[in-house]
C-alpha cells in the first residue's frame, strides 16, 4: 500500500502557478505604459492619429529618432545636462566622503546632532529654499547659467552621501585605522588609502543614485535658467512639446532618448541602485 501511495504524484498545488500568472498579468500592466511610448516612437504621426498607437507596427519607422537626434537643440540640452550632472554627482560624493569619515571615525561632542541635522536635509521639500536661493544667485548674477544648478545639487546631495558613507566607513574595522596611524599615516591617508578602497560599493551606490536624480531633475533648471541654450533635457522635453504638438512619435522618441542614460545605468547597476534606495530609506 505504501508503495502505491508513493507512486501517486504529489497532490497538485495550484498556488505557484496562480502566483506566476498573477505576476505576469501585473507585469504586463506595469509595462504597458512604457511599451506604448516605445511603440509609438517607431510609428508615423498618421498611424498614431488613426488610433493605431497600441498595435505592433509592420515596419519600424525610425524617422522620429532621426528627427530627435539631428535637432541641434536636443544636442544642447544633452550637453547641458551632462555638464550639470557629472560635476554635481562627483562633488556631492566627495563632500559626503569627507563628512562621513568624521562622523564615522572622529566623533565629537554634538557630532550626532550635527549628523542628524545634515541627514534630515534630505527630507525637506525643495520649495522651502527656492525663494532665498533665487535671490542669492540673482544677486550673484548667476541666473541663466548652469552654476546654480550644479551648486544646489551638490549641496542637496550632501545628506544622502554623508549618510551612506558614514554607514560604510563605520563598518571598516577601527584596528585598520589604528594600525595605519601607528605606521605613521595621517588621517587623510587613512581615509584615502584604507577606508575608501574598502568602500567602493558605497561609491558605486551613490554614483548611480546621484546621477539618476540629478539627470532627471526638473525644478532647479526650471527656476535657474531662462534661455533655451541653458536648459537641460527634462525642460527640453516640455519646451519641444510646443514644436512637436501633434508629432506624438517624435515626442515619444525624445522621451526615450532623454531617459536612455538613466535606463542604462539602472539596468547595469540595478543592484547598487536598489541597495542605495533601501539603505537611504532604512538606516535613518
Amino acid at each position, binding site marked *: 500500500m505504501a508503495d502505491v501511495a508513493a507512486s501517486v504524484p504529489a497532490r497538485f498545488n495550484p498556488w*505557484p502557478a496562480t502566483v506566476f500568472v498573477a505576476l505576469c498579468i501585473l507585469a504586463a500592466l506595469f509595462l504597458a505604459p512604457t511599451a506604448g511610448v516605445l511603440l509609438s516612437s517607431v510609428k508615423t504621426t498618421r498611424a498614431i492619429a488613426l488610433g493605431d498607437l497600441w498595435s505592433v507596427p509592420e515596419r519600424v519607422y525610425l524617422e522620429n529618432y532621426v528627427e530627435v537626434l539631428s535637432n541641434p537643440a536636443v544636442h544642447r540640452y544633452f550637453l547641458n545636462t551632462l555638464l550639470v550632472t557629472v560635476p554635481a554627482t562627483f562633488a556631492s560624493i566627495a563632500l559626503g566622503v569627507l563628512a562621513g569619515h568624521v562622523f564615522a571615525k572622529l566623533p565629537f561632542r554634538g557630532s550626532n546632532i550635527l549628523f542628524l541635522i*545634515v541627514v534630515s536635509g534630505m527630507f525637506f521639500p525643495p520649495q522651502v529654499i527656492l525663494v532665498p536661493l533665487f535671490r542669492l544667485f540673482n544677486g550673484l548674477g548667476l541666473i541663466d547659467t548652469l552654476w546654480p544648478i550644479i551648486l544646489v545639487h551638490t549641496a542637496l546631495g550632501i545628506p544622502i552621501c554623508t549618510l551612506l558613507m558614514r554607514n560604510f566607513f563605520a563598518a571598516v574595522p577601527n584596528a585598520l585605522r589604528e594600525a595605519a596611524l601607528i605606521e605613521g599615516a595621517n588621517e587623510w591617508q587613512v581615509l584615502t588609502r584604507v577606508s575608501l578602497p574598502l568602500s567602493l560599493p558605497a561609491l558605486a551606490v551613490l554614483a548611480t543614485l546621484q546621477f539618476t536624480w540629478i539627470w532627471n531633475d526638473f525644478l532647479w533648471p526650471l527656476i535657474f535658467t531662462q534661455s533655451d541654450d541653458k536648459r537641460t533635457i527634462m525642460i527640453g522635453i516640455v519646451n519641444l512639446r510646443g514644436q512637436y504638438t501633434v508629432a506624438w512619435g517624435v515626442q515619444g522618441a525624445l522621451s526615450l532618448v532623454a531617459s536612455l542614460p538613466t535606463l542604462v545605468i539602472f539596468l547595469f547597476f540595478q543592484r547598487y541602485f536598489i541597495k542605495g534606495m533601501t539603505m537611504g530609506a532604512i538606516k535613518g
Partner: protein
Amino acid sequence: MESQNRLWRVLLLALPILVFSVLVIWPLLSSFYYSFTNWNGFNRDYEFLGLRNFAKIWTDRLFFNAIVNTTIWMAAALVLPTLTGLFLALLLDRQVRGARIFKTVFYLPICLSAIVVGQIWIWIYQPDWGLLNTFVKLAGNPDFNYAWLARPDSALFAVIVAWSWQQTGLSMVIYLAGLTSIPSEMLEVCEIEGATAWQRIRRVVIPLLTPSTVVVVALSMINSLKGFDILYIMTGGGPFNSSDTLAMHMYNESFKKYLMGYGSAISVVLFLIALTIIGVYFRQLRKVDEIYG
C-alpha cells in the same frame, strides 16, 4: 593625538558644512525672513509686512483649495503604492520563477524622471487614442472620449495613478528587504499549527513588517509632499486649480505672480508639515528599534 584629531575634524568637515550651510540651512532660515516681506523677485528692496502674508493665507481661497488637494494627494499617494508594493512583495517573496525579472519590471519606473512618467501617462489619458479610452471603447463604448486630465473631477486622481505607478517599486523593494528578516521557521510552525495562508499573512507577516511599514509610510508622505514635476507637466495644477497642491501653489505664487514674500509664507507651511512628518517618523523609528531590536 586628540589635538590632531581636532585639526582633522575641522579640515574634513569645513567644506561640506560650509556648502550645506550656505545653500541649505541659510536659505531655509531666510525663507522665514522673506515670509514677513513683500519681495517681488526682482527689485532689491522690499517692505516688511509683519504677519500680513500669514493672515492672507487664511483668506486665500486658493490656499485652502491647495490644502484640500494636498491632503487627497498625500493620502492616496500613501495608500495606493504602499498596498500595491506590499502585495507585490508578498507575491515575489515565494521563490517564483523569474522573480528577478519581475522585480526589475516593477522597479523600472523609479529610474524614469517624473517628466517622462508624466509624458507617458498623458498619452494613456489621451481622449482619442489613449490606452485607457481605447480599452473603454473595446469594452463596448465606441464613442467614449472622456478627457481625464482636462476635467476637474478626474485630473487629480489621474495624476495620482501615474504617481503611484512610479512609486510602487520603491515600497515593494523596502517590503522585500523587510521580508528577508522574517525567519522561515516561524512561518513553517504556523503552517504545521494549521494556520491558513491568509492568517499567516495577517497575523504574523504583516505585524512583523511594521519596521518596513514605518519607513514606507514616512517615505511616501515625504515624497508626495515634494511632488511637483509630475503635476507641473500633466496638469499644471489645473483645470480650475483642481490639482493644485501646496508645492504647485507655492511655485505659482512665487514664480508666476512674483509674490515671493507670499510664496515664502506658503513654503513655511510646507516646512512645518515636513517637520511634523519627520518628527513622528524619527520617534516611530526609535519605538520600532526598541521593540524589534
